[in-house]
């Protein structure tokens, strides 16, 4: 029986959890090192990060590392794609962290795949990227937290190569802002988006949450599915949302 490696790394203001075969420890080390580089480069809490200096006008975008330019371009494209509901400047200043975490975890998972790992799950503070089959041989089962009860799940999804991202009333106190009003988004408790890419799923979850109701009901994007919990505790989901079959074991 293969030994699983479980590692929880404190980085980017949260914890990134790895579940991977134990023979890929060195690849996890590489991914963790890279995540800390991302933290140092993109953090808006560090005055000396590239993004902080760019936001204060101390450096120009052309002087930033390729990764920063890639993220900024992706944020612009997502803003256009979501009618402005995803924005790297929703709070008035440059803050691409709504994209960076999902993007970074997507990259970390890809690093494990490149190292040869056929099966792993990386959870960046609640945004999850699964690769291959689970250690059981079937799909990965990802619980969606119930924002009304920390010890309960709202729903469980299942899949092999897919991403699960959730936006909601954040524990860190930074609420999702409606970029059009600058005010905290209302009407929803949480929005979960599944799809092939965690960077996009994370940004879409943020955008749909910012839309509020009823606009969130109408959101659709090919390849991506949504599950939402409204302020009164009701839920809705798109037809292809991958709800896991009830555990019969």
């Amino acid at each position, binding site marked *: 029986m293969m030994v699983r490696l*479980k590692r*929880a790394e*404190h980085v980017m*203001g*949260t*914890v990134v*959890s790895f*579940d991977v075969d134990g023979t890929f420890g060195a690849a996890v080390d590489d991914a963790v090192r890279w995540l800390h580089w991302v933290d140092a480069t993109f953090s808006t809490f560090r005055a000396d990060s590239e993004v902080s200096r760019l936001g204060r006008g101390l450096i120009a975008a052309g002087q930033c590392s390729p990764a920063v330019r890639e993220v900024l371009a992706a944020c612009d494209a997502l803003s256009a794609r979501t009618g402005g509901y995803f924005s790297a400047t929703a709070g008035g200043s440059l803050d691409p962290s709504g994209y960076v*975490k999902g993007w970074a975890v997507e990259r970390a998972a890809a690093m494990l795949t490149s190292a040869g790992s056929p099966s792993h*799950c990386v*959870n960046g*503070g*609640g*945004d*999850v990227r*699964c690769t291959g089959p*689970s250690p059981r041989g079937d799909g*990965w*089962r*990802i*619980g*969606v*937290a119930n*924002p009304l009860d*920390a*010890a*309960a*799940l709202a729903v*469980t*999804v299942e899949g092999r190569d897919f991403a*699960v*991202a*959730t*936006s*909601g*009333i*954040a*524990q*860190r106190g930074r609420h999702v802002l409606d970029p059009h009003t600058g005010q905290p988004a209302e009407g929803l408790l*949480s929005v*979960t988006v599944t799809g092939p890419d965690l960077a996009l799923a994370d940004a879409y979850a943020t955008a749909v949450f910012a839309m509020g109701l009823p606009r969130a009901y109408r959101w659709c994007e090919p390849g991506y599915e949504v599950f939402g919990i409204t302020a009164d505790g009701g839920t809705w989901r798109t037809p292809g949302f991958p709800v896991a079959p009830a*555990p019969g*074991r």
Partner: protein
Amino acid sequence: MRRVILAVTGTIAGLVALLGFRSHVPSSAPAVSVGGTSVGGTSVGGTSVGGASVGGTGDSNAAGSPSAEPSASAAPAGSHTVDGNVASTVYGPVQVQVVVGNDKITGVHILEQPTNTANDLAIGQFAFPKLIGETLVAQSAHIDAVSGATYTSAGYIQSLQSAIDRGA
């Protein structure tokens, strides 16, 4: 049974970690010995974990048979209960009882806990049930990870994902 032992270990380690976390006394946080590996100074958890997994009716493969020792908190049919030894933490004695059915923990009861201060009472009223609930949910739902609004680095210990990472 091994999975159950691991889960008990995780639960007790989590409970003790939570005691230390909530009280903000990192220098005197309770040391706990889990699975024979001492994490800190005084070894307290080891005896408790050993008692829970080896003592009682733990190895009797009692699934499907009535509990040998009916207790006040009666276990559902097909389950049995196992009492852990009393663990003496720096906050006072803690003893847990687990309900085992089909080789899985289906319930955890706190038999004894510190009640000296308002903080102790708060831990008993809120923290224990919360952490126990998380452990049970993570185990019973067979889930590999949890998606939710981003938790902070400090809030992680109380998250469902933390229970999964501990091996629940």
